[in-house]
C-alpha cells in the first residue's frame, strides 16, 4: 500500500501529531514501505482462525465495589503543566 502525503496528513491528524511539511514526503515513503512489507500477511491462510487478542488464558477478575482510591487531588495535579482552581487547564474549547 502506497500512502500519499494527504493520507499521511490525515493519519497524523487522527493521531494528533504535528508533522512538518518537509517531513511528510519522507514519512509517506517510510510508512508505505512498512505497509508493503506487512502485506506479506495476505499470503497466510487464516480461514476459520479466530483473532487472538490476548495470550492470557484467564477470565476477567472482578473487584468488590468499594471506595479505595481518590481523594488525592494533589497527586492528580502534581505534574500538571497548567492548573487553576484544582482543575487542569486547556485552551478554550468551543461547544
Amino acid at each position: 500500500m502506497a500512502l500519499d502525503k494527504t493520507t499521511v496528513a490525515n493519519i497524523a491528524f487522527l493521531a494528533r501529531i504535528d508533522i512538518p511539511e518537509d517531513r511528510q514526503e519522507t514519512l509517506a515513503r517510510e510508512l508505505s514501505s512498512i505497509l508493503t512489507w506487512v502485506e506479506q500477511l495476505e499470503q497466510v491462510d487464516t480461514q476459520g482462525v479466530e483473532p487472538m487478542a490476548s495470550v492470557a488464558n484467564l477470565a476477567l477478575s472482578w473487584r468488590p465495589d468499594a471506595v479505595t482510591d481518590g481523594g488525592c487531588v494533589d497527586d492528580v495535579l502534581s505534574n500538571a503543566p497548567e492548573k487553576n482552581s484544582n482543575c487542569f487547564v486547556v485552551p478554550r474549547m468551543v461547544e
Partner: protein
Amino acid sequence: MTYAIEGNTGRWTVVVGLEVHAQVVSESKLFSGASACYGGEPNDQVSLVDAAFPGLLPVINAHCVEQAVRTGLGLRARINRHSVFARKNYFYADLPQGYQISQFDKPIVGEGHLVLDMPDGSSRTVGIERLHLEQDAGKSIHDQVPGASLIDLNRAGIALMEIVSHPDLRAPDEAGAYLRKLRSILRYLGTCDGNMEEGSLRCDVNVSVRREGEEGLRTRCEIKNVNSVRFVMQAIEVEARRQVEVWESGGEVLQETRLFDPSRGETRSMRSKEHAHDYRYFPDPDLLPLELDEEFISKVRATLPELPDEKKERFIADYGLTPYDASVLVVDQANADFFEEVAKDRDGKLAANWVINNLFGALSKAGLSLAESPVTSGALGRLLDLMTSDVINGRIAKDVFEIMMETGAEAEAIVEERGLRQVTDTGAIEAAIDEVIAANPDKVEEVRSGKDKLLGWFVGQVMKGTGGKANPAVVNDLLRKKILG
C-alpha cells in the same frame, strides 16, 4: 391515529430511536476505586487510574457488572455470557486516556424489549438493540478563566450503561413514553437513579422522516445530549419538521450530529464535532473478556423485584383497576406501594380513585412529593373506612381530606371535632324536607307533574339544610315518598 407531519407535498411520518446513557448506581467507578458520588470538590474523586497516569491499569467493578445484568434482565433481554471491552479512540480534553473503555461488537446485553403505556390505555412494544457498559468522561468548565477551559475529572470513569433502542418509535409522545418507562424500570431495579437534571440519565435521539406509506429509512440525524423528557419530545418535533422542509425543498438531509436549543426551539449542526471521526475500536488489551456463568445470572434474576409491567397486570387482575389507572400507579414503586397499603382489605377501585385523583392532585398542587405527604397511607385508608361504613358521606370525605392535607390530623378526629358525622336520623331529615316542601309549593307541583329532574334540586336544598351531613340516599328516599307519595 398515527403521528404525521403535513408537508407541502404530502404527509410525512417520523422514525425515532433513542440511545440512553444511564449512570450506574455504585459506590466506586467502573475501573477504579474512586468514589462515584455526584458532586465533590474538583478532581477530588479521581484516582491516578482515572487521570490516566502512565502504567496504571483498569480493574472492573463487580457491582457494575451485576447492575448491567440486572438491567438487562429487567428489559427482558438476552444476557451475553461472553462480552468484550473495547477502546474507542479519540482525543478530547475530558477524556484522559485518549480512549474511552466501552463495548463494541460484543456487548454484555443483547436484544430485549420494553412495553410503552400510552395515555389512551393501549400499549406498544419497542425493541432494545443492546446495552453495554462504558466509562463516563470528565467535565469541562468554560466560563471561569478567559480563553481557557478547566477540566474536572470527578465524573471520568463512572460507569454508564448505554441502552440503545431499535428505531421503533413513531411519534414524540412515544419517545416520551419510552423514556419514562425506561426510567421507571431502572428505578425499580435500583440500577440508575434516573435523575436527568444531574445528568445521571442522558439521551441521544436519532431522527429521520419518510413519506407516509414509504418503506425503508432515509438518512437520520443524531441529536446529542437532550436532558429532559419534554425536550426530547420537542426536539423530535422540530427536527422532523426541519427534515421535511429539507426534503420538500429538493435538498438532502445529511447524516450529522445536531444540538437541540430549547430556548430557540430549533436544532443546529455541531459540525465541529464531526471532524474526521474514526474511533478505531479494538479490544482493550489491558482487560480480558468478561465471562458470566449461568449461576451468576440466575442469582441476579432471583433478586429482581416485581417490575412495572407485572405489577400493572396484577393491579388490573387483583384490584379491578383500569389499565390506565394501573399504569399511572406503577410508574413509581413508592406510589404503587402507597396504593397497595391504602387498598389492602378495601375497595381497590375506590382506593385507586382517591390516590390518583385526590391525593396526587393535592400533592402536585402543594408541590410536595409522596414522601412528604401529610396524609399517610394508613390515614387515607381510615378516611375511606369512615366513608364505606357510612359515618361520613363522600362530599364530607372530600372536606375532611382537605383538612387532613392541611393539618395532618386523623380523619376520625376531624369528623368528631367538627361534628361532621352523617345524619341518618330520619326525624331530623324529615323536618328539613318538610321545610323545603313548604317553602316551594310550585316546584313540588312541577315534580308531581312529571319533572323528575327537579328532585335533584330538592336533594341539594335538603343537604344544604343539614349542613351537608345528611345521608344522601336517605334524603332521596324520603323525598320521593313525601312528594310522589
